[in-house]
């Protein structure tokens, strides 16, 4: 059976809070009930049917068609189930989700996966700033789960990330992994300035050496890192999209840091075997 499908019929004038529309909360509702649900849109509320055409489908699967960047908080608080979005989404995709999976065939706005504690997010386009980061006012970012971005990502990827995995196939902006508490970030494109600034623990794996590595990171030299061998072997087993990691060699220059805050984190800059 196909997924419960919401097709955008009218572009909202302002951002819409999509957080009520997650599969686990829609379970048991009839199509008419879903259409009658209220969504926040700017300083007013509107009903789902005012902007979406609702087609019934399997409980536990939600598909959003003709999406726009004005749809915020898609999949926020998701516990279980699958969400597929065709088109861009706005801010805070999968905010505080605890399980299930979200796939966006398009770009995502700021704060994708912020505060998430489980599940997986796949973004085939680009993502904005603060991927997997802490929500404003909160002490820690994502605590578990996986975020995969095929395109580029903005600044502050994994800011205050506590655990979990973020993989970015494209480039990242400045302050990648800033104030990181733990977890793993893999950047296969280029990284901007101040990578790992203020990171306490955690691992940032960089396919290419950044132009500038902070003075508070000390090189431990070029090494064969067994943890990389394990990661490159195990991650593709759980995440099909990470198959490209299988071909990578466990050679890296290791930078310990940020020494300004203890130095228990690390940047691993991959090296080509010579």
């Amino acid at each position, binding site marked *: 059976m196909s997924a419960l499908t919401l097709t955008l019929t009218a572009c909202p004038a302002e951002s819409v809070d999509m957080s009520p529309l997650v599969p686990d909360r829609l379970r048991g509702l009839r199509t008419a009930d879903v259409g009658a649900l209220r969504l926040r849109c700017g300083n007013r509320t509107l009903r789902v049917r005012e902007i979406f055409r609702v087609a019934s489908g399997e409980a536990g699967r939600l598909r959003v068609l003709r999406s726009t960047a004005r749809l915020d908080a898609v999949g926020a608080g998701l516990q279980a189930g699958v969400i597929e979005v065709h088109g861009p989404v706005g801010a805070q995709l999968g905010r505080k989700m605890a399980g299930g999976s979200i796939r966006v065939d398009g770009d995502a706005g700021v704060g994708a996966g912020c505060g998430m504690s489980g599940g997986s997010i796949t973004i085939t386009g680009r993502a904005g700033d603060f991927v997997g980061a802490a929500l404003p006012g909160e002490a820690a970012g994502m605590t578990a789960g996986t975020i995969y971005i095929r395109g580029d990502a903005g600044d502050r990827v994994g800011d205050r990330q506590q*655990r979990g995995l973020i993989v970015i196939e494209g480039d990242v902006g400045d302050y990648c992994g800033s104030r990181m508490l733990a977890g793993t970030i893999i950047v296969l494109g280029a990284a901007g300035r101040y990578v790992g600034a203020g990171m306490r623990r955690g691992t940032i794996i960089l396919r290419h050496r950044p132009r500038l590595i902070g003075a508070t990171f000390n090189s431990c030299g070029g090494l064969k890192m067994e943890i990389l*061998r*394990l990661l490159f072997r*195990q991650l593709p087993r759980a995440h099909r999209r990470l198959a490209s990691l299988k071909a990578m060699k466990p050679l890296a220059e290791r930078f310990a840091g940020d020494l300004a805050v203890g130095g228990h984190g690390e940047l691993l800059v991959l090296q080509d075997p010579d």
Partner: protein
Amino acid sequence: MRINGVQIDDTFAEAFSMKATRLVITAIDLYWAYRAANSFTGFASSVIDCGCEAAIERELKPAETPDGRPGIAVIIFAMSTKQLSEQVRKRVGQSVMTTATSACFSGLESQSRIPLGRSLRFFGDGYQMSKNVNGIRYWRIPVMHGEFLCEETTGVVPAIGGGNFLVMAKTSRHGLAACRAAVRAISRIHGAGTTFPGGIVGSGSKIGSRYSFMTASTNHRFCPTIKGLVSDTELTGEIGSVLEIVVDGIDERAVRRAMRDGIRAACAFGPRKGIYRISAGQYGGKLGPYHFHLHELLK
């Protein structure tokens, strides 16, 4: 019952409950994985005085190990989860971690778990790091060869120790030839291990002794040099050597299959090659709840 002319006694092997875990030891190549595995399973023949029983289960191809390097699967058995935990900590710490390029992973899924890297991480003296990969936590302990990678915990399962059979032969040379074939057959059984040197026991024991400070003593009824002296000897005149194969397994099925295949391999030698009888060690129900009846196994 006879197989290939070898008499099979109508008796049973008496086995007892244990706890077990399987570990996967990897290294830069198989040579170094074997060094670690041999050291880990050293002095681990019997719980009587070793604290545990351990054996190499099999070689693992790189495709079968978590880090894609050649490896060895070892199984270790102890009388309780606490003892197993203690032995695993000591043996991985002193035998595996000290082997250059080694890494150690859990090889058994179970709800019940004991610490592996969780207790060894303190060797890192504050420089250790953990990494969660696909929901499994690994510890990275900085050591002089690089990093010792170790899974945080390993699964524990109820297991069986003391499955056994006795091979009665004309001489030790005849008995060893048959027993080595039996051990080779048993090594192909997943989940079973022979923990004594070469998989063969040359000095099988009975429970108790005439000396109060001894918990076990020589199984006098199967000692050929005193068969004329011992009133309850089990040996007939032509038997000059008795060798025992003890099988531990992670479940009853593994022990059963290992005993069956081992006995059949030994019997293949037959009386013409000096193998006369197969029996088993049973202690009147005093040792344990598992009884493996030979005739039933070999039906």
